[in-house]
Every structure is written in structure tokens, then in C-alpha cells.
């Protein structure tokens, strides 16, 4: 979870690691140590499949520690231990920053809400939106984040309003940064989304 700040960003994008924070998956709601500015200002878009190099391993790595029962001095790694420290499950869940955002779809008469903390990637989020507004399918091309209404063929582009009130294209920034700054989502008709992002292939 530590951010390796101050690292220079590699120019090439091959590994998809366009940011200087080594993003790892922790428990939801974790307060991230401050990420450097580099991520947000990059501006280069990434396709979903490249966004985050998910490092699922760290938390679950079994560290090689001595068995406590052999009266070893080195303590057991917390990551291995069930139910320790003794913090109630309820309290763990309550400390999650409840990141519910409204989702609006142009032309639909109702709003839905999603908890962004429930997802770990744009892929998961959009799949879930697909389930919710089930008449759409998500076109899953690299560099294209379009949602198409099967019935009337209208294309929708997922956008979001960030903390500053600006409307941005979903997918531009690293996932966690998106979660922290997203206030609401809107599936905008493609035709209206012109100007949100130059690279958007409409």
C-alpha cells in the first residue's frame, strides 16, 4: 500500500504502469498514502485491460516467520491470521468509506446507485452497470469504452463528475484515483460526449 513517490515515470507504456504508485489491493476503504501528482496529470488514456497492474499477491503472501509456539521472538505475520487483531467484523465494515454514487443514463427515467468500493477495476464496474441497465452491452475494445443500447443502437459513453465538478471520461485515471474523486456517474449519449476527450473514437 505504500506509494513509492518520487519515482520517475517510464515513458513507454508497455507494462501499463503509467504511474508511480505501485497499486496493490488492500481492504476497501483504506486510506491511501498520498499518491504523487504524476498519475492525475498524465492525461494519457489507457484501455481497460491495461489500466492497473493489479497486485493481488502482497496481502496474501505467506511470510516465512517462525512458529510462535516454538517460542520464537519474531512475531507471526498478521496477514496469515484469521480473526486477528480482534476487531469486530462490523467495525471493519463500518470503517469502509461508503462510496455510493448515483448512476444516471441519458434518456432513462430512473437513477441507480453503485458502491464504488465494491469494485476493483473499471472492467468490474462497467460489467455491473451492464447488469443494471440490462439492455446495454459494453463494447469492450481497447481504448473504446462505449456502451451500446442493443435495442435502439444508441451508443453511450460512461462519464463521471469529479470532486471539482468537471465531467470526465471514465477510465482516464488510475482506478483508485477515480474512486476517490468520482461523485456521480452518467452514461452519456456519444453524440453529447464530444469534447470530453480528444482521443475518444466516436
Amino acid at each position, binding site marked *: 500500500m*505504500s506509494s513509492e513517490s518520487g519515482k520517475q515515470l517510464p515513458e513507454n507504456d508497455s507494462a501499463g504502469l503509467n504511474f508511480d504508485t505501485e497499486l496493490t489491493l*488492500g*481492504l476497501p476503504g*483504506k486510506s491511501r498514502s498520498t499518491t504523487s501528482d504524476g498519475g492525475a496529470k498524465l492525461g494519457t488514456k489507457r484501455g481497460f485491460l491495461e489500466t492497473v497492474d493489479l497486485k493481488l499477491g502482497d496481502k496474501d503472501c505467506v511470510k516465512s516467520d517462525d512458529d510462535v509456539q516454538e517460542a520464537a521472538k519474531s512475531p507471526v*505475520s498478521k496477514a496469515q491470521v484469521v480473526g*486477528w*487483531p480482534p476487531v*469486530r467484523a*462490523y467495525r471493519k465494515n463500518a470503517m469502509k468509506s461508503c462510496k455510493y454514487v448515483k448512476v444516471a443514463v441519458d434518456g432513462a427515467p430512473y437513477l441507480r446507485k453503485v458502491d464504488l468500493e465494491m469494485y476493483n477495476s473499471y472492467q468490474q464496474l462497467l460489467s455491473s452497470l451492464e447488469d443494471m441497465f440490462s439492455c446495454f452491452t459494453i463494447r469492450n475494445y481497447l481504448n473504446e469504452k462505449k456502451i451500446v443500447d442493443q435495442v435502439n443502437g444508441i451508443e453511450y459513453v460512461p462519464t463521471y463528475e469529479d470532486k471539482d465538478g468537471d465531467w470526465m471520461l471514465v477510465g482516464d485515471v488510475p482506478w483508485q484515483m477515480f474512486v476517490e474523486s468520482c461523485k456521480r456517474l452518467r452514461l452519456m449519449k456519444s453524440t453529447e460526449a464530444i469534447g470530453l476527450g480528444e482521443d475518444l473514437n466516436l
Partner: protein
Amino acid sequence: MESSKLKREKDSQISDELNELRMESSELKKARDSPISDESYRRSSFPDEVLERVISLLNSHRDRSSVSLVCKDWYNMERWSRTHVFIGNCYSVSPEIVAQRFPKIRSVTLKGKPRFSDFNLVPQNWGADVHAWLVVFAAKYPFLEELRLKRMTISDASLEFLASSFPNFKALSLLSCDGFSTNGLAAIATHCKNLTELDIHENDIDDKGGGWLSCFPESFTSLEVLNFANVTSDINFDALERLTGRCKSMRVLKVNRSISLEQLQRLLANAPHLTELGTGSFSQELTPHQYEDLESVFNNCKNIHTLSGLWEVKGLYLPALYPVSTHLTFLNLSYAVLQSDELAKLLVHCPQLRRLWVLDTVDDKGLEAVGSNCPLLEELRVFPADPFDEEIVHGVTEAGFVAVSYGCPRLHYVLYFCRQMTNAAVTTVVQNCPNFTHFRLCIMTPGQPDYLTNEPMDEAFGAVVKTCRKLRRLSVSGYLTDLTFEHIGRYAKNLETLSVAFAGSSDWGMQCVLAGCPKLRKLEIRDCPFGNAALLSGLEKYESMRSLWMSACNVTMNGCRLLAREMPRLNVEVMKEEGSDDDGRADKVYVYRSIAGRRRDAPSSVLTL
């Protein structure tokens, strides 16, 4: 907590009267036996009615238990006058036995699962379902008014049954329970016409939406206590506003985080007599005018002594609380992520504080502020904001603990999660605060020694038990040898509850505790090198205890079988891990005394020996 203190004083007053009565009663007996005229006998006779009256004033269930042991008459008088029954382990007795002994019960407190179920150590379907109890109560206690459950399973069907079976039902409190959804709450709201208390606290609820709150009928006005802080989905605010508006006797209101500051202000405007308040989210962007409104509404709430909630708190808005903070005695900031300076600023305005719960985001500096500003503090709980993140550097240390102890000599209850501790610090703390009754220290890395000296933390806990003679509850942590347990056995003569994890060197440690602590009632142990010898050394002890839990220790199935065979009035339950063999280690053992025999609702993963 004040009212329970008053109760205790009242009880001890009554106990004294009772003692006098006892003496008089025995003198009376002597008088009866000696040749005295009828007249003088009548003058000095002690009518049963008076005795009944005195006994009926007893509230403490322990006093009542003592009373019932004096003689048969007293036993009967006690059982007929008891209106509240407390059952610490729902499997220690059956509902039929309870109903037979106590015909006039109006209030029941029931506790179910072992405490370690809070930390996911107990399988999901373990038991402690309340339904069988409700069925008996419906038949025997149709006028039941109160039900308080802790760590029990209660289904929606049971809640519906409850709501429709007891026309006088007044108070429902669910703490750390599971098995129900908001539909069950809807049933309570809909059918309990006389409800005064609905306290839904830290449960595992299947949250299906906030519609349940709208189920209180418009004609319903009796609610005095409403705590739905833990039921997270949005409720209909208009319904809540109308509810609080028409329930003129409401004194406790704890809302969930969906309630904004502006909405809170509207609720409080209608409920200035609240004594306990749990706010919703404390982070809405407020205009200056809205902020003023908030401040002034708090200014009108002169009776609030307990404050909680404060989710997503914005330090900027805390000053709105200052009018209320001057008479606060209990401040629960355990869901409020505050930094040290924010806490410090707030505490300047909380001189009357007796109980404080905080997150460790306040750091040692925040705790210094506690020590400086809260001289009357009796209870401190410091919870970890990020307990599972090994890379977090912040949190509280021994310095904060010591700082509090210097400023708060009346401290008697502490729960302290930290990442480092020293023997010297703990020793200093208990020297400053010798009146601890509850000392729960959790050094979060298992088996961690004194970080300065690298010694075991034996000396620390030794100091605790030697200095704090009134100690009733102790949780130990860090790297501990058998010496800690020798100390506990030798000095902790009032100890009732002991929690041990990743500690000890051999069976001897546990044996010391079992042999040395006469008042021990609950012993819970995990990941310690205690085996069969230790387990079996407590053979005679366990019947005087409520329960024993041992998990990930060195106890084997054979050891457990031997215990079960020797002590038929104990239930010895072993929770089997999947795929484990029968003769090997007994991974999770739960032993408890029972007059109800082995339970019949154990799932297949639980083996009663």
C-alpha cells in the same frame, strides 16, 4: 452508565437492608423457639409481605441468586418476584426450565455465541437461534415487554413472531446478532404498538433497504429509544422526521450515516429533550446560514450527555458541537476519522467526559490532549483505523497510554490497540491508575515483545495484576511466557474474564490461572501452547465458570473426550475443521456448564462429546 451506577448503589443499599433482615429473621426464629407470649411474638413478627417487598426491589441478578440460596422460602419469594432474567449462555439452560422457575418474567436478556464469533472464529451456522425461546415465551410470558439479545441468531420469521405474539412488547435490543434483514425490522415497526425501544446495534443485517422505518404507523407515538446507526441504507427522511416529531418522549436517537447535517438539524429542532444522540454523516457542505442553524439547534439541546456517529466528520464543523460538549459524559468518536489537533480542539470543550472512544488516527498527541482536558475520564477505548494494514505507520504507542494515565487518575476501563508497547509504560500506567477493573491491551502484532528491551511483556501484566486489585477483566497480548500467567494466578483474585492469544510457553501457564483465580467465569484462549494437561487441570473449575474457549492450542480429541466423560454436567463441544481426522487435534473447543444437557441444534461441524 450513570443509571447503572445508581442502580448499583441502590442495590447495595438494598443488600444492606437484606442483611439486616437476615439477621432479624434468624433472631425471630430464636424468638419463636423461646417461650414468649403471643402478643410480643406478634409485635416482633416479620410478615412475609415485607420480605417479598424488599426482595422485589432487588435488581441485580447476582443478588437475587444469592437470595434464592438462603432457604426454600426465600427461593420461592425470589422466583415469584423476579421480572427480569439474565441468561449469559443460552445453552446453559432451556427455556422450559426458565419458565418453570420464574413465572412472572417481563424482561429477558440472552447471550449466545462465544465472544470469538465476533472475529469470525465460529462457523456461521453454529447455533444460538432464539426461536425456540420465543415459542416458550409466547406461551408462558404473553406479557413479555423486553428482549435483549447479544450474539444470537434471529430470523425475520422470528421477528415477525415476536411482533405478533406479545401485545405489551416494549423494548427490543439486538447487539452483534445475525440472521435477520430489514424486513424483520419492518414487522416490529408495523405491529408493536407499545414499542418504546428499538436498539439495533452492530449486527450483521441483510440490508434490503430503508423502507422499514416508514412502517411505524402515524398513530404510533411511544418510541423513546431509536438506534438504527448500523442499518445503513437510506430511509425515508420525511417518515423519520414525522416519527421523531410525534414521539414526544424520545430521549435516545441514533441515526445512520445516510442522514445529512441539514437533516440532523431538522430532527433536533423537534427533539430538544434528547439525552443521547448519534449523528449521521458530519460532512455535508454547509452554507454559513445552515451552520448557524446547526449550532443553534445544538445550543437548544441541553440534555445531551452521550454523542456518537460523526461519520466522515469534517473537523471544520466540530465547533457546532461545543454547546453540547460541555455536558457530555460519553463521546464515541470510534467512527470519526480525526487527527490529533482536531480532537484536541474538541476536548478543550469536554471537561465532564467520563467515557471516550476514539480511533488511533488521533495519535499520541491526541491522547495527550485527553490527559490534559479530561480529568474525570473513567473509560478510554482506542480502536485501530487500519488494523490489517501492516504498512501503516500511524497509530498510538505507549507514549499516548502513559500521557492519558497521568491526566486521568480515575481511569478504570481501557481498551487499547497499539503497535508497540513497553513494560515500563504499562507499569507507569497502572501506578497512575490503580483502579482498573477492565484492562484490555492489544498489541497488534502477535507475540511482539517490549520493543525497547526486547523482553517479554510479562512484567507489564504482572504490574497490572499486582497493582489493580479490583481487576475483573483482562486481555493480554504481546510476547508472554508462563510468568505472566503465574502472576495472574497469584494476584488476580477478582478476575472474572481473561482473554489470551499467542501467549504462554507451556501447560503450566494455563494451570496457574485455573488454580489461582477463584472468580474466573470466562476464559478464552487462542493460539497458545496449552494442551491436555492444562485443559484437564481445570476439571473442577469449569462448573463454576460460564465457559471456556480454546482454539488453535494443543488440545486433542482424546483430551476433550476425557473431560466430557469426567464432567457430565459440562457440554464439551469441538468444532471440526473440514477434512480433519477424529483422533487428532481438537482445533476449536468450547466448554460450558449446562443444566439443559447437550444441545440438539448443533450443526454437523460441531461435535458434542
